[in-house]
């Protein structure tokens, strides 16, 4: 019997026991942070789960099977220099490496090629990025339903596109960007079901000036035009349902003017992105409710600094600011680390430029936040609709349990096992908070988010057994 260990190039670096700075995540924030720190001479370690650098936005940037240009567009390919800066630098970059724990004293538990290791860096920057906001509609667990981001990943890293009848549903820039990329690749889209709320344009208007003068405006408008010219867009969608027995057959929808139904093979859902906060949460960084972005984010300051000494969060993982913003925030967090460890490094003089660049690329963000705020109907499911995909818990069950006196998300875990499955609440956390807030008639901030514990990713007993058996290893295992 042959066994395939995760494929790792033999000339890949080994895991060091210590370093000045460990950066978790090789998206724009992590790449920029690592490159900046290495320039200042910090011994820098960059850890990432994927086979190549880029994170989700620049996924497979160094190894995409698609030719540069055309389908994926210039914004995607603009990520190349970020990846190159790291691969040509002194950064020790460990791909296909999972971080499963982070302790308050910054000890990192990682696994790589079937073995686990503990590393003790002097400082840590979490650049764990964003994930798609859950969109719990009836039937969203059916094969054939996928996230728009997931479909985009297949396009970037494998050159795959949906075959058969395709519908995109939801709201947010990514939905239209993906539609434009599909059109460029010759993929037909039967319809886009736009769930942008009816009053959203009016709510966003006060922020319009900043947006109109931002770099996103012209790009956004030309994208919308291109998609509108070729795809039927049904706007003002207030309800969605994926139909089928065991596999997706159709999507039905409602608007103010009535109901509709489209037979489909693939339905791609998207309603914005939210910070992936699991690792920081498990390390003890408090989560705070961000009303403007309608999600939780880690409690860090503008430079990403948390209350835990030496631990920072940069990029979309600290609050959504987009790819360009993420790179600047990565640099900023690195500069803070450099200031602490090498206060006379020349690179520190670049801070004002980074801050200026950051405020420029964040312009217009408030407009997008208001315009594409996920409508309540798509955040607060009802009836049989599954809220927790791992444990198959419905919205109705969550509501009933709240009525029985269950006060918060952490207590709900022990009643329903929500958030206890392998996804560790990443797919249900926001939905659970929304449902509990609604049932109790209070704000999401009052309900709060799951308090998570390591391991934040499943780790096998065999991997744990490979840890060195000293005292700290034993402690770490107990914590796990």
């Amino acid at each position, binding site marked *: *019997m*042959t*066994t*395939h260990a*995760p*494929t790792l190039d033999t000339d890949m670096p080994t895991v060091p026991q210590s370093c000045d700075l460990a950066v978790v995540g090789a998206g724009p924030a992590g790449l920029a942070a690592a490159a900046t720190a290495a320039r200042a001479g910090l011994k820098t370690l960059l850890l990432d*789960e*994927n*086979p190549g650098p880029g994170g*989700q936005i620049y996924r*497979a940037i160094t*190894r*995409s*099977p*698609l*030719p540069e240009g*055309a*389908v994926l567009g210039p914004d995607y390919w603009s990520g190349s220099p970020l990846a190159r800066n790291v691969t040509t630098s002194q950064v020790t970059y460990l791909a*296909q490496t999972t971080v499963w724990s982070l302790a308050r004293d910054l000890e990192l538990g990682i696994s790589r090629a079937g073995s686990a290791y503990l590393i003790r860096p002097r400082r840590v920057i979490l650049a764990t990025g964003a*994930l*798609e906001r859950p969109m719990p509609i009836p039937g969203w*667990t059916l*094969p*054939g*339903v*996928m*996230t728009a*981001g*997931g*479909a985009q*990943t*297949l396009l970037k*890293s*494998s*050159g*795959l*596109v*949906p*075959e*058969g009848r395709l519908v995109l549903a939801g709201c947010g820039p990514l939905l239209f960007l993906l539609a434009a990329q599909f059109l460029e*690749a010759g993929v037909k889209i039967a319809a886009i079901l736009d769930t942008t709320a009816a009053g959203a344009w009016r709510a966003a208007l006060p922020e319009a000036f900043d947006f109109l003068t931002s770099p996103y405006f012209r790009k956004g408008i030309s994208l919308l035009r291109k998609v509108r010219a070729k795809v039927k867009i049904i706007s003002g969608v207030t309800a969605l349902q994926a139909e089928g027995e*065991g*596999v997706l057959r159709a999507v039905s929808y409602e608007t103010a003017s009535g109901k509709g139904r489209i037979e489909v*093979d*693939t339905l791609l859902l998207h309603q914005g992105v939210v910070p*992936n906060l699991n690792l920081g949460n498990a390390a003890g960084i408090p989560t705070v409710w961000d009303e403007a972005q309608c999600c939780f984010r880690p409690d860090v300051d503008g430079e990403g600094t948390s209350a835990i000494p030496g631990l920072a969060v940069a990029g979309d993982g600290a609050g959504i600011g987009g790819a360009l913003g993420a790179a600047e925030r990565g640099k900023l967090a690195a500069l803070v680390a450099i200031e602490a460890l090498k206060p006379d490094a020349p690179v520190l003089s670049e801070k004002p430029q980074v801050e200026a660049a950051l405020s420029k690329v964040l312009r217009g963000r408030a407009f997008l936040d208001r315009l594409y705020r996920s409508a309540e109907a798509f955040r607060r499911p009802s009836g049989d609709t599954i809220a927790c*995909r*791992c*444990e*198959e818990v419905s919205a109705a069950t969550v509501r009933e349990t709240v009525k029985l006196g269950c006060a918060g998300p952490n207590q709900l875990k022990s009643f329903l096992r929500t958030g206890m*499955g*392998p*996804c560790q609440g*990443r*797919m249900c956390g926001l939905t659970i908070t929304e449902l509990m807030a609604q049932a109790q008639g209070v704000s999401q901030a009052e309900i709060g988010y799951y308090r998570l514990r390591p391991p934040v990713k*499943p780790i*096998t*007993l*065999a991997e744990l057994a490979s840890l060195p058996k000293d005292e700290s290893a034993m402690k770490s295992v107990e914590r796990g």
Partner: protein
Amino acid sequence: MFRRLPEAKGDTVLITVDGKPVTARAQDTVAAALLAAGIDHCRTTPVTGAPRAPYCLMGVCFDCLVVVDGRGNRQGCMVQVADGMRVETQQGKRDIAR
């Protein structure tokens, strides 16, 4: 289902899925290879036995769990294919330590 764009380049590798030969590309993850091969679900859930297919493709949802070379509960979207790899779709619960 999914199809490969003609402009996508890359070497071909051969894997098996539930014993049947499937051609994939070297850059593919197991989840991508299954979707490209028209395999409509990769597991059934432990609770109700409902079929699931890869949903997020970024390691978050765990709906892509499969058995790879005899080891269960592997995230298909996070594992790269390799020539000769044996993939099995996963029915219900698997012992996490396997």
